[in-house]
């Protein structure tokens, strides 16, 4: 910390600015949570009539919970695809010089950098070409493909840290490639894989832009909320939003603990999170 001659921090206005930005970032969320308990529903100030009604209503809202189930299904399946392909991709990037390697690298990142609408539309066109019906399956396809690079980035970083010598020792001692993979490589990648899984899960649960174009009859949670929002505000939305917020909060703390525990410094975690959380 840099202090001036008087020993005070010359950060008075800077601190004020920081507080203002935090207020800007959090007040809308706080408003949401507060109004989920507001008897008069949305809008109006000050909030009065504290009630759990909206939560009660929420509990009986079957279509909503169906969509939650759908979202979970999609997220888990997407996880499987992304990691199932992201893991070999990371290994390939680390160890194999295949033709078009740098093109592949850039291509696989595109879904995270381009606006979701472009990826969503492109996949829609493919789906139509193949003649596949729009359903949860197409959404799973979309999420799984788009999130491969999340898995690849995390696992690749983990590979950089791991010791190559361990694998060489295993081979030297007579284990086959397969055995080495199961006994040595995979256990070393446990943490990055779990971290990637958590991240993919959260991103999939919240994904809307790509899903928008690949949706069939069954809604995911974000799309269910979206369709209700189009019809008009209901305080129930506040309630489900609050629940989503608390749930995401728990997940992110978990993810952070995991990442920090693995010895990475804040800034590198940050750098990867930037690309991924888009």
């Amino acid at each position, binding site marked *: 910390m840099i*202090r*001036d*001659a008087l*020993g005070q921090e010359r950060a008075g206005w800077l601190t004020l600015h920081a507080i203002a930005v935090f207020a800007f970032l959090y007040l809308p969320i706080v408003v949401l949570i507060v109004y989920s308990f507001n008897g008069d529903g949305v809008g109006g100030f000050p909030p009065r009539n504290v009630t759990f009604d909206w939560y009660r209503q929420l509990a009986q809202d079957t279509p909503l919970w169906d969509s939650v189930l759908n979202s979970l299904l999609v997220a888990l399946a997407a996880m499987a695809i992304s990691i199932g392909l992201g893991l070999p991709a990371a290994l390939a990037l680390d160890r194999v010089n295949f033709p078009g390697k740098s093109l592949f690298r850039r291509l696989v990142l595109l879904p995270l950098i381009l606006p979701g609408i472009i990826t969503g539309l492109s996949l829609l066109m493919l789906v139509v070409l193949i003649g596949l019906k729009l359903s949860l399956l197409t959404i799973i396809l979309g999420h799984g493909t788009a999130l491969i690079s999340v898995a690849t980035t995390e696992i690749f970083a983990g590979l950089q840290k791991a010791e190559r010598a361990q694998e060489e020792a295993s081979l030297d001692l007579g284990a086959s490639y397969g055995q080495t993979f199961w006994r040595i490589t995979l256990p070393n990648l446990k943490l990055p894989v779990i971290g990637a899984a958590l991240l993919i899960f959260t991103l999939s649960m919240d994904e809307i832009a790509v899903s928008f174009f690949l949706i069939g009859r069954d809604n995911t949670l974000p799309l269910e909320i979206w369709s209700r929002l189009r019809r008009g505000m209901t305080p129930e939305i506040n309630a489900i939003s609050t629940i989503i917020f608390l749930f995401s909060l728990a997940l992110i703390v978990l993810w952070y603990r995991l990442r920090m525990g693995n010895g990475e410094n804040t800034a590198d975690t940050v750098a990867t999170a930037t690309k991924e959380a888009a």
Partner: protein
Amino acid sequence: MGTKPIVESSAAGGGAKASPKTLLSVRSVAKRFANNIVLRDVNLDVAEGEFLSILGESGSGKTTLLRLTAGFERCDSGEIWMAGERLDPLPPYKRQVNTVFQNYALFPHLSVFDNVAFGLRVKKSPAIEVKGRVEQALAMVKMSSFANSSPAKISGGQQQRVALARALVNRPKLLLLDEPLSALDANLRRQMQMELKALQREIGIAFVFVTHDQDEAMTMSDRIALLRAGELEQVATPREIYARPATTYTAQFIGQTNLLHAHVTAGMAECAGMRWSTDEPDGPVTFSVRPESIVVATGTHGDGFVRFRAKVLSQLFQGAAELLQVETTSGYRLKVRTSSGKTEAAELELAFAAASAVSVRETQA
């Protein structure tokens, strides 16, 4: 604690000067980090134009003392004065002190020229003056041809010169150097030591040089301040600190030595069967005898010399000298340094001058 460091003859270098003025005065400075007391009650004066080394092991507090002087840390207690004014309340950018950092800390986004010009430009010096002084500074460190290079493209030794130029171009009253040579390889290091010493002589600015390398301190300094566990153990010229170390720590840290734990009775010191006369008062006294003070005894070693027989345990060839480990008849082990090729015997008769046994204080733990 109560043991005061021994500060002897604060004479600065450059012999022809009359009693040199004190430039920097560190008075009763103490500093702690969390539960760690890093500096306790340090008192040190730096004379104008002198080359002072702060020598110490890691953890001794030497870097902290430097940083307090530069202004990167604040003293917990005590004061620092420079040229008659209080220095310690000032932030680093208001002090006329400049630092050469251990890893040079050159600005990667600026060229060599712009790096050196930095201090002048923040003071809004006119461009012509900046150009002139920067070119002069670069010439002084022999880096003129690299003016447009980027710091990433030059070697460690070259970066160090640029760091030096960058500091000196501002004509500070005092230059602080934080182990600037430790990242260089041995040969380059020796060369830079010579150059730095010559440069300091030429410019005449006071240098405070932090190092853990006692050879380096001995080679370059007008005076050495030995720091141990946050306190000054001894402050003296290299010759004095070597010939008359104040404590056992000093005797062992600077050069090698033999410590004789003797007992003095009525002007005679006695240890391991050896006896010599001394001015020390009665009681237990530790004496330091340098290995090169012990020689193979010949007929000329009579009065004033202590003679003894010893078994040679091992012999280490060191080029110009040989280092012998010997054991006296009473089992006392000593180190002896002789010039090479003199001895091949298993047992020797050795001698040392009583005057070369210097009494030292036991270092408090």
